């Protein structure tokens, strides 16, 4: 089921978006999608159905800002970039993610 992929990504979508924008600079939604896919060697796929609501929510929260720009191909695209508040959020989410994975790993290996 396609839904399972979604579920796994649920909590991490924010983290992935923030990290990608921090590393790669401003991107549009499609760029974000393909970038995550490429960098994760096709292990992760961001689903459009979750991506756009998440982008808009994060923009309302002030973690991202957006602007309409013309791409190389002459199309108008909405480009997102990370804000200072977004970087703070990234740091804290990254921190908690790492603690979570460390914890889960320890449970998996030591019990």
């Amino acid at each position, binding site marked *: 089921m396609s839904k399972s992929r979604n579920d796994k990504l649920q909590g991490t979508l924010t983290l992935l978006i923030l990290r990608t924008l921090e590393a790669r600079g401003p991107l549009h939604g*499609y760029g974000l999608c393909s970038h995550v896919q490429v960098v994760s060697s096709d292990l992760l796929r961001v689903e*459009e*159905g979750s991506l*756009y*609501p998440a982008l808009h929510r994060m923009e*309302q*929260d*002030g973690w991202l800002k957006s602007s309409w720009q013309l791409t190389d191909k002459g*199309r108008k695209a*909405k480009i997102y970039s990370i804000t200072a508040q977004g970087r703070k959020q990234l740091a804290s989410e990254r921190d908690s993610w790492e603690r979570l994975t460390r914890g889960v790993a320890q449970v998996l290996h030591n019990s």
Partner: protein
Amino acid sequence: MSLFRKLRNTFRGNALSSELDNELAFHVAERADELIAQGLPKDEAFLQARKAFGNSSLVKERTRDMNIAGWLDAVREDFAYAWRQLGLNPGFTAIAVLSLGLGIGANTAIFQLIDGIRLRGLPVERPSELAALNRPRDFFVSGAYTSRNVAFTSAQLASLSKHQRAFSELLFFNDTRFNMSPGGRPHYVDGLFVSPSFLHVLGLRPILGRDFASDEAQSCADSGVLISHSFWTAVFGGDMNVVGKLLTLEGQKVPIIGVTPAGFYGVEPGLKFDIAAPLCADRMFATDGKGRLEDPMAWWLAVIGRLRPGWTVAQASKHLLEISPAVFRESLPAEYRPDAAKRYRANKLDAVSASSGMSLVRRQYESPLWILMCISGVVLLIACANLANLLLARGSAREREIAVRQALGASRSRLVLQMLSESVLLSFLGAVAGLALAKGLTRSLLTFLGGSDAIQFHLPLDLDRRIFLFTGSLACLTCLLFGLVPALRASAASPISSMRGSRTSTSTRERHGLRRILVISQVALSLVLLVAAILFTRSLAHLFASSVGFDARNVLVATISARTAGSVNPDDRAGLFRAIDARFAKVPGISSYSAVRFVPLGGFGWNGNVHADNDKLLSAGQLSWFDRSGPGYFATMGTSLLTGRDFTPHDDVHAPEVAVVNQSFAKRFFGGKNPVGRSFRIEEGAGKADRIYQVVGLVADTKYSELREDPQPIAFFPVAQDKEVGTERTFVFRVNTVADGVARSLQREVAAVNPNLLVEFKLLHVQIQDSILRERLMANLTAGFGFLAALLSTLGLYGVMSYLVARRRSEIGIRLAIGADRADVFGLVVRDALFMVAVGIVAGLCASLLLSKYAESLLFQLKGNDPLTLVMGCLLLLGTALAASMLPAYKAASVQPTIALREE
């Protein structure tokens, strides 16, 4: 910031939506580009890209939700929906908005008046520190009283100022009017005589020119007058160089020294002043050269003081009570007889809050206005009940729709909110209509209260914050009253039962119980209002029908004033008036005329204590009213002369002093026996000999000061025997037709004698109508409200009966099919309606009996529980209710059983 953006986005739905479309389309296009690069044909590529994207409308909706305030969006949707609903039923909307508008408008208009005369503080500095000097009950007053407020003599106030410690400063004022015309028809403006402390006590400063100096009370040599801001703008067009200009007041030139601040109308809410002159001007304008400043018998000055810091009104009252003996000992007029002096010295003073000023208008109209406020509130209640009923009917018509929505998962609160939004819209529209109506209503009420030319009422009519607050809360309240119950009711239906059968079952009684209760309370409330309307209308009719003892139709009253006619001494005045009197005889169109001192019901009077000839007692006599008239007065007025004779031209200063008395006088002083040939004496001041008068005639009773009074003893004396001729002389003329031509001819005759004389004309019956303005106001308004209430509740009854008949169509069809008579069906419906009306009437009767005693003080010759009135109210209501139930009953009786049953 985010919330603000969300709120903004909620109302830019289209822009937001197209932005989203663009963004998502871009995504699909990029994916398609990639697929094309992999070698797919264009169409195939787009199809695949869209497939991969998934349910794009779902994505769009979810993304949109991130950008808007959800609750607000729901509210916006509800209102848009409600607006469309109202547009779909223009008839319902019009009735609802109109009835709410009338109700809210009437309430707002009356509130505006009450606010103006009672609730609002004076437009001065810290009005709560102001207190007025007051007289407790049983205060003994004797002398010349010339104020519409609680007034005192100059001597009392001088003594008070010396002893009192409660006030940091006092202001004295006398209300008056100043004539600005040099001759001919007078031109009056509202005036005040004020102490120099006037503005200072109130914490105000002139916006132009200067205030009075503190020594301007005594000498007017270098003084002038202050004019009000409204007078300044109306008469001088806001001229900045107005200070120093001369006004002609009472024939004398007086300079303007300053202009008072905008919005300051004086200290009497409901009235205004145009010109404030210093107290010394009273002496300057007085025809006897003395005025009231040093007259110990002249009660003319009202008093307002600013309390010292830390003093309350109650403490001030206590203090005034303590210094009262000293004040009345020092100010005792020498002319009082011993018994009067004793009562005078026992007088007490106290203080009342003057934060909202002192007001004649308030004393006269406060309780009528509160009654009217209650009545218009009840009208609004009835309108609300009507709307609740209509909305209930709408709710049951929408039962299915609501059931579907509930079945699809709409929450109850969401449904209630949606239905309430319709009520909110209605009450908002009603409030807007009400505010628009209120402006006109208040204006016409004020015009009505102004009478033909009596006192001009003045109230600020701006729709300010207080009025908006009042109207707004009224609208919210009405909205909850008529909207909440129907909304709760409609959303409470269980989806299954509403969806299963539309018309099959006869509806349960319980569901219609509420509608019946609403109709019953409407009937009860309108009965209360109808009873009030009939009470006030009959009271007015009694007043009109009460025998005044004269015929007021076609009587023209002319008042001639010699105030502006230069220095004419009293003897010359008598000659002047005699000359004018003689010239009137030649004027055509007059069947008879006479001079008179006081026109009956004109608001002025003269009284004293009388002893009959054989009464040798030294104690005080009994009170009688007095008047002076010329030969032919009784014939002119249409008062019948019972025995004896009228005055003749021979009853002058050289003849013995005579009197004509009325029946009540004869009854009180001569035991009802023929008074002609008897004599009586009037008590004079201390040290003067009592005067003896011979009775020469007996006339029928006439009203003296007001229509409501019982017959009073009156004695008339000849005008020609008046030892102290005043500056004014009044004439009454019985004219053949009421036309301005006669007045013009009379005015020409007066001008021929002296062009500087002032002449004022008035019709006696107009003057009498003006004297019962309050009664007419109550009768007219309560009748209007009663009519409105009856109309609304008739509509309500009609609506409910029609609804019930429609709901019972199949039942009626069955009844008819199994043999019921059409008359039976007709009777069934009418009986049902009459039952509700009967219950309503019983409840209404109880309420009327309880409430009507509050109106009793405003009624004339009627008790609040007057049986005829109650019966009339019940019959009227029963009649209209019967009429309202006829049409539904007829419809029920003409149901075709086959058609009604086929609908199942």
